Structures are given as C-alpha cells and as structure tokens.
C-alpha cells in the first residue's frame, strides 16, 4: 500500500494534468520522429533561398511559384488528366508485371526444369535499366499505350520474379517436414505451406515492384506520349518551366510515397505473422 501511495499524485484533481502532459509528449515525439519536421526544415531553407533570390527564378523557383504553377495546371485541367493517364499506366503495367512475376517465381522456385531453363537468362536481364528498353518498346509496340505497359511491366516483373523465387528457395525445411509428416498432399503443401512461407518475400518484391512502376513510368512516357506526368515534364523542359517541373516532381514523390505506404499496410495485414 505504501508503495502505491508514493506513486499516485497527492490529490485526484491533479490527475488530469499528467495525462495531458503525456499526450503532448506523445504528439511531440510523433512529430519530431515523423516526417513533418523534416519537410518543414527543407521547406524553410527553400523559402529562404527563394526570398533572398540567391538563384534566378527560372533555374530554381521559390515554393510559392511552384504552388501557383500547380494551381495553374490544376485549373486548366492538364494535371488531373496527366495523373489519371499516368496512374492507369503504372497500375496496368504493375498488375501485368507483378502477376507474371509471382507466377513465374512460384514455378522457378518449385520446378527444377523451369529453373534450369530460365534462371540464368532472367538474371542476365535484371541489370538492364527500363530506359534502355524504350527504343525496343517503340519498335515493337509503337508509341501507343502498349510500349508504356511493356516498359513498366518488364521492370516490375523482374523484381517481383526475383523476390518470389528467393522466397521459395528459403522455405524452412522444418515446415516441409512437418507438412509431409502430417500427411499433406503436394498440392496442399504448396498452397498452404510453401506459398505462405514465401509470402513475406513475395510481398517485399511487390512493394519494390510498386516503387519501380513509378520509377519506370517516366522512362516509359519518354517513348512518345501526349499526356502523363512524364510527358508534362518533357513539355515543361521545352518551355523552361522549372516551376512546373518542380511541381510535377513533388507530386510524383508524394504519389509514390503514399502508394508505398498503402501497399506496406496491406502487406502487414496479409502477412501478419512476420512482425515478431
């Protein structure tokens, strides 16, 4: 009893104050530990550079110029259209590449013949950057949507395949032994043991794939497009509209980070057992 008395505040009226202090502490810790401080810090430096006019506006636009360029693009309708076009390219390319990557990764991870036939070739393809494929894509698929899907899905496919394959290779032997000694059929072992055991790796690959879909999006839109964030960046270069470029780059960054966050959260829900 004496010990507990020492720990509780002397009067019950004061009980609220420590709680508020505690909440403020948590909020402060979240802000300082989170991205807000970092963004404010960079924005502060950027504003200072803009206000002091250290660099010409055409080379390095101030935050307010970038903001008004954003508003301008939004009001004339190009921004919404570009976003829609780019996001659907990234999404279609991602879905194509990721599903092919997972499917082939499961096969090369499981079937020795397919592994022998394909792995060295696929490994050789991995270092080829997306942008280097653009000329080939244009010859094969023209300057329509096909070449964009091809460049994006190719990049996503290789990464997702690679991670899936490795996830399959590192399925712990104990799981397989447990499954076999419990009389599981090959199919049930594959569906309910091998795939879940590889799932954390597969999701790591998918998350990387999402990031790469965004990275290769701009490269894909260099293959002759008439809309999309990548195209708009090209166009801004022709008119030396650095304010628009900055706006588009920031939007690209924010979009990528948001999608990554969403994918990360979905992954955590789906492979909930990996957290400990």
């Amino acid at each position: 009893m004496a010990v507990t008395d020492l720990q509780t505040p002397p009067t019950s009226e004061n009980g609220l104050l420590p709680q508020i202090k505690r909440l403020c502490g948590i909020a402060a810790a979240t802000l300082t530990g989170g991205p807000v401080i970092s963004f404010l810090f960079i924005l502060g430096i950027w504003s200072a550079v803009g206000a002091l006019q250290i660099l010409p506006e055409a080379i390095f636009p101030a935050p307010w110029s970038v903001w008004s360029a954003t508003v301008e693009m939004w009001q004339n309708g190009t921004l919404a259209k570009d976003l829609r076009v780019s996001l659907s390219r990234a999404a279609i390319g991602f879905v194509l590449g990721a599903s092919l990557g997972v499917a082939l990764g499961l096969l090369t991870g499981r079937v020795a013949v397919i592994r022998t036939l394909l792995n060295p070739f696929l490994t050789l393809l991995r270092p080829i950057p997306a942008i280097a494929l653009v000329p080939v894509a244009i010859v094969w698929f023209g300057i329509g949507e096909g070449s964009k899907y091809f460049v994006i899905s190719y990049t996503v496919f290789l990464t997702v395949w690679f991670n899936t394959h490795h996830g399959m290779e590192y399925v712990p032997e104990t799981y397989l032994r447990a499954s076999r000694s419990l009389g599981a059929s090959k199919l049930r072992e594959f569906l309910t043991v091998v795939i879940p055991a590889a799932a954390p790796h597969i999701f790591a690959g998918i998350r990387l794939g999402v990031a790469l879909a965004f990275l290769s999006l701009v490269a894909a839109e260099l293959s002759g497009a008439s809309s999309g964030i990548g195209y708009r960046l090209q166009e801004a270069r022709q008119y030396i509209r650095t304010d628009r470029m900055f706006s588009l780059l920031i939007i690209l960054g924010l979009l990528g980070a948001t999608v990554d966050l969403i994918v990360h959260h979905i992954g955590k829900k789906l492979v909930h057992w990996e957290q400990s």
Partner: protein
Amino acid sequence: MTTMLNEGHVRVQDVTIRFNGKKGPVIALDTTNVDLKPGTFTALIGPSGCGKSTLMNAIGGFVKTSSGTIALDGVPITGPSDKVGVIFQQYGLFPWFTALGNVRFGLKRLGLSKAEEIDRARAALDEVGLGAHADKYPQQLSGGMKQRVAIARTFAFGPKVLLMDEPFGALDAQTRLVMHDLLLSVWQKHRATVLFVTHDVDEALLLADEVRVMSQAPGRLIRHYELTQARPRTFSRSGSDLLTIRDEIIDLLRPRALIDA
C-alpha cells in the same frame, strides 16, 4: 490392447547412412540394428553430432539409408508418411495458422466435415490444456505452449510412431518438467511407439522404457538399458538403480571413456 500392441513396430536392420561431405563421404551413422517395439518409449541419447538425429530422420523418411532397411510393421519406409509423426525442437508450427488451424492441418487428410474437424482439433487442444488459446497464433504463445500445440497436432491424427527430436531442448527446466508429465499422460492415452532423441540423461531416465546410448561420430548404438520403474519417476523415489544407470551413462558420454570403448 493386443491389436494396439501389434502396430507401430519399427525395425532398423543393418542401416548405415553416409553423406557426401566436402572431403568425400562422411559416415553419419555406422551399422545400426534396433527394434522399437509397439507402444514402447525409447530414449536415444548421445553426444551432439553423433548421428542420433540422422537415425531419427531416416525413420521419419526424411533421409535415405545408404544400406540396410528400415521397416514399419513390415513395410519399408521410403519417405515421410502420416504413420510417423514428428515433433521438432523448433516446434515446426505454421505461424500463418492459429493453434487450432495448426491442429486442423493434420486432420485434413481424414476428410472430416468442417464441424467435426474443428471439434476434434479443439478436443486435442483441450487435452494439452490449451483449449482457451485455440485462436492464438504460435508467435503469441510461449515455448512450452508452442510445443503443446505441436504435441496436440501430432497426436490428433493418430500416428503409429512418434519421433521427437530434442523436443524440450529450448525450454527452461521448470517448463520441461511440466512437459514431461503432459507428454507421458498424452502418450499413455494414445500409445504410439515413441523415439525420443535427447542429450539430457535425466530426461531419458525419467521418461523412457528403453534407453539407448550412442557413441561419438560415426554413431553406433553402444549400450541399452531397460527401465521398468513405475512412472512418474523421480530420482529420490524410483530406487538407486536409476542413479547407477545415470552414472554409467554420464561416464559413457565422456569423450575419454569413448576412446577406451
């Protein structure tokens, strides 16, 4: 009872197991003959790396014999089967299934209705005192509880033989004692033939009907004890024989003694 006693007879005849190491073949198990009689509890004890796990893995069908045969009830063992249950030191539970889901996994092959399957899985968890934790995931359970789930999962589908590879090696001493009682009570109910690999002499003497001691690598069986003391055993109550055997085994396991033998 008589029909039960005819099932689960493991016969290991002239078995050797060699692996291809970096410097040529390595003998993991030297010529071994052993009979595990139906419904008996055999402890296999030996220094680490002596090949006791190799012998166990061969009976489990995970490792091929280089020569000789292993048969269960007269039928040669060619691969893992649901007649031989295995309990691993690292539990081998699937972290993506709950405790109940893990037990149900082993019941799938019986083709029960869903309700019946759940009922049986629950009953198996109740038997090991985990009925209240059926919906927890393995990573939410302590080491002792995980191993209880594994025991429930394996016994639930009724294997004839149960292989346990240092199953309590990762647990603290107090939890081990509780697990010993639990294992004996579940085993006495289901009566599988048990092969229990351990390097803990006391554990072997408290649990087993037969204790077999293995030499250092290349492993072979060098001593055999039959224990008839009533269970539950303790060193203070189960007579001085147990202590004498304990001293002998500890002496056998000493590297110096092995060179003489």
